[in-house]
Structure formats: structure tokens, C-alpha cells
């Protein structure tokens, strides 16, 4: 369950050690203060756990309350367990926001992984003039705040006639995911053994074929880590879509992604005094995250943290 898997036998070794030193476990000189500390730390840990879980549960419960109930008392219990707020949230656009987010990410994530890996691979394993400058060029992008590029980016996308379009947002997502993806995959490709590569060359495989059939499968652990990072990053992105995905004319359809949509819903429901819809909308948005998180929490924790430390 934890990020760091205990080596099998470690616990047994500990037991052996304590037997060898002839000390019963937990009875050495720090035994009593260990006991106090144990209770103390459990107390603290439990409090923080409640601070995390309670607001989330409270929000979900809000989807089953009436607007009046929500406004009058925070600690009220839902009186009716109807799901109609969820239906209303879906009709108000949550369904569309979901669809928009998925349409963008179905293209942007694979493209990010493919292009990022291609660049990282060439830079990691093929020395040529200009290799280092190009690598630093890619990686330096991670240092700049996105706000530095925002104004010209908007007009660049406008000139390409891609404002409020899926393809525009997809290309921008891919471009802004490059620095990190190249950086991470570059360090990964460098660690892969050259022997397999050489064998494939001797067998007469082309560079491209070696990349797709030999190197990519070998790089799978790295791809999973960086993939998780990109999926979460693009799923949760708000600044880029809020600048680039706005209807440009009256007849231009709304193509909000989920994050934008939730903020939009917050704004609308404040006016329409239908807060259960807002809470239901957030609940709907949270459910896939929760499911994915609980299914892959070890990989997600390991992936995100290793990505940071690299």
C-alpha cells in the first residue's frame, strides 16, 4: 500500500535482531516515551485526516440538501436523498464539460507522450552538434511562469484561428507539457542499456523501428510516471483554457473544459440560488478522480513524487 515496499523478510529480520540482542520489543529504555509518542502521533494524524475528509463529505452531502437548507445551517443533515440535483447539474452542462475535457485529452495526452518521448530519445542517445543547446532549450521552459507567455500566446492562437477550438487547446497543452516530459524521459532513456540497442542495429532494424519496438517497451515505467503526471496536469489545467477557450462571437458555442465549467457553474448557481446543483457538479467531477486515485494510488504517489525529485 505504501510508496516504499518493505523488502520481504525485513520484518522477520527485525524480529531476529531483537531476539539476538535479547531485548523484548518495545521494552528498551525509550519504550515508555515511545508509547506516549505513539498515542500523541495517532492523535495528530487522525485530526489531519478528519480535516481532509470532512469538508469533502460535507460537500457531497450538500448535493442532497435543498438550497434553503444549505444557506441556513451548515451542519444540517439532508432531509431528502434525491438525486435530482445530479440530473440538473448534468443538464446544466457538466455532461458537456466532461465531453470537452475528454475530447481534448484523448488527443493531447498521447501526443504529449509520443512527441516528448521522441525528442527525449534522440537527445539522450544520439550525440550531434547542437544536442545540448536543444535539450536545455526544451528544459528551460519549465522555469518560466506561464503568465509570461500568456498575452502573445493568446494572439498567436488567434492568428492561427484556433481560439475556442479543440485543436488549438490540444496543441497548446502538448507544447506546454514538453519541458517536463522531455526532461523526465531524457533521464530515463539515458539509463537504458545500450546492448539491446546495438543488437537490434546489427539485426538491421531501422532507427525508427528500434525506437518503437525496442526502446518504448523498455521505457514503460518511465512512461507510466510521466503519463500520470501529464494526465493530472492537463485534467486540472485552468489558466490556459480560461484564456483560450472562450466563445469568440455570439454564435460561437461554449466549449468549456471541466475546471472552467465548475467555476462557471459556481457563478450561475450563485444567481439562480440552486447550490445543490453546484455541489452535485463538483461531486460528479470528483468521482472519476477518486476512482482513478484509489485504483492507482501507489503509482500516482510514486509517479508524482519521483517526478518532482528528479
Amino acid at each position, binding site marked *: *500500500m505504501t*510508496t*516504499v515496499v518493505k523488502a520481504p523478510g525485513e520484518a522477520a529480520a*527485525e524480529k531476529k*535482531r531483537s531476539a539476538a540482542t535479547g*531485548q523484548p520489543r*518495545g521494552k528498551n529504555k*525509550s519504550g515508555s516515551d515511545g508509547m506516549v509518542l*505513539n498515542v*500523541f502521533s*495517532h492523535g*495528530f*494524524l487522525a485530526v489531519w*485526516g478528519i480535516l*481532509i*475528509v470532512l*469538508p469533502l463529505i*460535507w*460537500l457531497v452531502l*450538500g448535493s442532497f440538501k435543498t438550497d434553503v437548507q444549505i*444557506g441556513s445551517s*451548515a451542519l444540517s443533515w439532508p432531509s431528502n436523498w434525491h438525486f435530482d440535483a445530479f440530473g440538473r447539474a448534468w443538464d446544466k452542462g457538466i455532461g458537456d464539460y466532461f465531453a470537452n475535457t475528454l475530447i481534448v485529452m484523448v488527443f493531447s495526452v498521447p501526443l504529449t507522450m509520443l*512527441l*516528448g518521448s521522441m525528442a527525449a530519445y534522440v537527445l539522450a*542517445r*544520439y550525440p550531434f552538434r547542437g544536442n545540448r543547446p*536543444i535539450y536545455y532549450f526544451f528544459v528551460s*521552459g519549465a522555469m*518560466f*511562469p506561464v*503568465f*509570461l*507567455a*500568456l*498575452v*502573445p*500566446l493568446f494572439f*498567436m492562437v488567434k492568428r492561427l484561428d484556433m481560439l475556442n477550438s479543440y485543436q488549438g487547446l490540444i*496543441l497548446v497543452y502538448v507544447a506546454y507539457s*514538453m519541458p517536463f516530459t*522531455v526532461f523526465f524521459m531524457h533521464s530515463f532513456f539515458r539509463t537504458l542499456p*545500450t546492448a539491446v540497442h*546495438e543488437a537490434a542495429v546489427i539485426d538491421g532494424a531501422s*532507427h*525508427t523501428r528500434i525506437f518503437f519496438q525496442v526502446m518504448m517497451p523498455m521505457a514503460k515505467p518511465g512512461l507510466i510516471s510521466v503519463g500520470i503526471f501529464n494526465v*493530472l496536469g492537463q485534467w*486540472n489545467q*485552468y489558466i490556459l483554457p480560461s484564456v483560450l477557450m472562450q466563445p469568440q462571437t455570439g454564435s460561437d458555442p461554449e466549449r468549456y473544459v471541466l*475546471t472552467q465549467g*465548475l467555476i462557471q*457553474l*459556481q457563478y450561475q448557481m450563485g444567481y439562480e440560488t440552486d447550490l445543490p446543483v*453546484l455541489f452535485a457538479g*463538483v461531486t460528479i*467531477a*470528483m468521482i472519476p478522480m477518486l476512482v482513478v486515485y484509489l485504483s492507482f494510488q501507489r503509482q*500516482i*504517489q510514486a509517479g508524482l513524487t519521483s517526478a*518532482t*525529485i528528479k
Partner: protein
Amino acid sequence: MSHVANSKGRGGFIAGFLILPLALYLTFVIWPYIQTFGYSFTNWTGQSPTFDFVGLDNYSALMKDEVFGGALLHNLLLLVFVPAITILISLFFAFMLNAGGRSGAGGVQGVAGSALYKVIYFFPQVLSLAILAVLFGAVYRSDEGGLLNGFLTTLGLVDPSHPIEWLNEPNFVLWCLLLVVVWHGVGFYLVLFSAAMQSVPKDIYEAALLDGAGRAQTFFKVTLPLLWDSVQTSAVYLGIAAMDMFVLVSTMTSGQFGGGPDHHSEVMATVLMRNFLYFGNAGYACAMGVVMLVLTLILSAITLRATRREHVEF
């Protein structure tokens, strides 16, 4: 490098693999970054195709801009408190999880259920800032319906007829936002520090224990120095997050692109976006972007220097 590097078709392959990623990256990332510097010396509105070169006017106007100055101060406040508070709490919990259990002869163990704690604590990290904004907007609501006010009135700490308007109180608003960032980040950094702690060889701890070091001493003399690299990295990351804050401020506080009440929660990013999208001062907004970049770079450098220590190998 292997002799692969010298086989046939190499040049074409390298070019073919690099061209698309580079083209995309140049078009949407590097070129806009470069343009920003250029536009920051003009009076461009973003609406009209024409603009004049105005030299350093935007920058001198920025120096006098009180709203931007206030925003900068808020960013600096956050920059001190966000990393400090988040790292302290995360370290504390990581230590609890990994060494708060009963002592065995093999040194100290983690508490029971540490895996479950990690799962719960880490979850906020996968939620989007937009979800956090809605969630905490509801928690901080200014009437009885807000979770925080609801609790405090139940405990008798807040007068039900005058609930606290958390996000509309000039003296509270920034701290309320800070709490959201801490709530969001602690789990992530805790897992990061935990992983680092567990990679420390056990015999180092055993040696410390044999030498008669207590828990606290072990933590400050052994654990912390070995974790220092991760602490440093975390400080830089959290600092960068504190320089941004756009999503939370613009969605949780009052005003066009947030920043209210009366600019008390303004950050540089919200002033920039307002000038760009609302006032039509594209050139001016670009100058703010440049200032943000310079500050971010300076602060990363300062953080790395201030937290520099002798590197400990293990």
C-alpha cells in the same frame, strides 16, 4: 555512447524525430515568451493592430502602480508562509508516520496504518484547483451555511447573528487562501519526505540508537540532514506556487478576476490578467509578466542559496 550513433540514416532520423516537437514548442512556448519582452516596451492594447514603442514607460508605471505593488507584497508574504508552513507540517507528519510508532530494538518504527493516512492525505493533490475553489468557497461562506461558521457557531465561538465573512474580511482573506494551499499540499510533501526517510539505510538509525541518541536528536542530527535535498526542492516548488495563486484568488475572492475586498487579496497574476483581458492593456500586462519571471528566478536562486548545506551522501 555506442557505435549506433554512426550507423546509416542517422541525420534524417534525428531531424525527423525532432522537427515536430521543436516546431510546436517554438510556436506556442518559446516565441510567445520572446514576444512578451518586446511587447512590454510598447503601448499595445491588444485590440488595435498598431502600437508605439514607449521604452521603459510600462516599467516605470509599474513602479508607481499601487495595486501591483500591493499584489507583489501579498505574493512575497505567501512566498514566505506557504513553503514554511507546508514543509513544517509535512515534515512533522512524515516523522510521525515513520518514527512515531513503538520503538523496537531495530530502532523506531512507523505508526500502524501509515499507509491509510498517506492515501487520505495525498488525495487533495489530485483534485483540481477549480474544485478546491468551489469547495472552500462553500467552507468559508459568509453566513450560517458555511462549514467554518457553522462549526464556530455550534461551539459558541461566533455570534450566529454576526457570522464572520471570511473572504470579505481584509485581514482574513489572504490567510484563508493560504490555508487552502496548505490543505492541498501537505499530503504530497509528506509522501515525498516519507519516501526520502525510508530510503535512509536502517543501520544509520541503529548506529544513532546505539550511541544513545533520543528521537528528537535523531531527527535533527540524522534524518533532517539526509532529507535536506528534498526540503530544498520542495521549498522551490512551493515558492513557485506562491508566486502564482491565480486560480484560487480569481475564483474565490470578490472583484473582476478576484483580488477583493479592496485589493486585499490581490496577487500579481490577477492584476496581470485584469489588465490584459479586462482593461485592454496588453503591453502593460506583458511588462508584469517579465517582472514575474525575474522575481521567480531571483527567488529560486535565493531559496537554493539560503538553504544550502553541505551535501550528505549515504
